[in-house]
């Protein structure tokens, strides 16, 4: 479904991605783990065309999307719940969800909002509240809900567990699995919380300073001594 081929991305003189290749197949949960600053967020944003890859190719459902503007990429079925959640602070929860539905012009709004509220009941209670007044956990739910409103084919999640209490982390990860199982939605999950991510993912890649240094099934990565030493110690 998604093929990233030898992608390089630079910020000025810094090369944040130095030739990354990976693949996500339909129906999978694939995770990218790696330390802070490894280039995980840059990779997800490059898939969405901002910043643009300076070299390499990105294919989505066989189509080369490397040079498309962000909104065109999103309209083809890639939604992102970005790092830091980026909730529109002065819009209500409902309006934030309406923004998520922009790619389909809000055609399925009522139906889809109901599904988001079923997945995250907290959002129903908060629907008329402004995004900026939500708690961190609620914002993360809204962030994922907003991305789902687009009815994406591929969902990109950037550190959904960041800054959340362990209880909430479990809940969010549970929701991610549920979305994947019940809707068959393909998910590319970026995490520093490698243990949790590998527990729910089918496959994983390890990114270090802009390069893929390891890949395999989740079971393989969980069992790998290097991965354990670098990313799993104390990371439960």
């Amino acid at each position, binding site marked *: 479904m998604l093929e990233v081929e030898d992608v390089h991305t630079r910020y000025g003189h810094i090369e944040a991605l130095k030739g990354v290749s990976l693949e996500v197949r339909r129906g999978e949960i694939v995770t990218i783990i790696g330390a802070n600053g490894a280039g995980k967020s840059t990779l997800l944003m490059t898939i*969405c065309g*901002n910043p643009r890859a300076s070299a390499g190719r990105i294919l989505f459902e066989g189509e080369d999307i490397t040079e498309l*503007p*962000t*909104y065109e990429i*999103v*309209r083809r079925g890639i*939604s*992102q719940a*970005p790092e830091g959640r*980026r909730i*529109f*602070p*002065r*819009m209500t929860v409902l*309006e934030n969800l*309406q*923004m*998520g539905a*922009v*790619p389909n*012009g*809000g055609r399925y709004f009522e139906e889809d909002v109901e599904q988001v509220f079923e997945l995250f009941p907290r959002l129903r209670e908060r629907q008329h509240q*402004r995004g*900026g007044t939500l708690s961190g956990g609620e914002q993360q739910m809204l962030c994922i809900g*907003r991305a789902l409103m*687009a009815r994406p084919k591929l969902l990109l999640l950037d550190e959904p567990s960041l800054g959340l209490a362990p209880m909430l982390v479990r809940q969010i990860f549970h929701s991610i699995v549920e979305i994947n199982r019940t809707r068959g939605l393909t998910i590319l999950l970026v995490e520093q919380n490698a243990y949790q991510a590998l527990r729910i993912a089918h496959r994983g890649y390890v990114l270090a300073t802009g390069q893929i240094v390891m890949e395999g099934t989740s079971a393989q990565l969980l069992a790998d001594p290097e991965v354990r030493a670098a990313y799993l110690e104390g990371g439960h």
Partner: protein
Amino acid sequence: MYYFLQQLVNGVTLGAMYGLIAIGYSMVYGIIGMINFAHGEIYMIGAFISIISFLLLGILGITWVPLALLLVLLLAMVFTATYGWTVERLAYRPLRGSFRLAPLISAIGMSIFLQNYVQLLQGANVKPLPPVVTGGWVLGRDGTFTVQISNIQVIIIVLTVLLMTVFSWLIAKTPLGRAQRACEQDLKMAALCGVDVDRTISLTFVMGAALAAVAGLMATLYYGVIDFFIGFLAGIKAFTAAVLGGIGSIPGAMLGGLLLGLVEAFWSGYFSTEYKDVAAFCILVVVLIFLPTGLLGKPEVEKV
């Protein structure tokens, strides 16, 4: 008391026009964080298009005033909006993503260019428009002093209230308005939601220019004369109004415009007409020093 009432009427009229122009400054600033210094010139072009439209309609024999007004209004909005759109495409979009001062400098250049362009095309002389709308209403009489509201003033105030209502609804309730607010709050995220950001910015310039065109038409009717330089002062005053209300905030722009109009009218009425512009600029300085976020410029205020 009656004298006061008269200044109030004049002030609200003036404030309506400032408010309409100020919205354009505020919206553009809200989305791309730039002061569009050419916006005053867009207003001036709106005034010129109005006067040319009146002349053309006269030649075509369309002289029934309500129809003529409506047509001129539409023509001015459409053509001026085209100018607004073009300015953004030519002078600002290519500079997006470059250093922060670049579009600002480009805007000043654009402002000078547009002034000279109109001066070359239309000459430097003031252009008069014979009174199109005449008559008015007496609101009260105190001995020899009568409080009047002219029909032009009625039109200006009613039209402004109408436009601002429609406009507020557009921003609050329509997908376009929502996209504009999203761009104002987080440009990058708006794009990730599938918003065509460039198009939204273009439309923001179009809307701001259309409102400025209405103000241009009003000024043409109200003062009866225009020239290529009117955009300078009106632009700075509307900018003052936008800052006073809190730049980035649309209700703020309306409120700031109204307040500035009132200050100017009362200043002229009670002190001296000569220094009314000084009063406006004093406000700008004082607001910038003591209240840089303006009256409604708090983060929780709805902005575009």
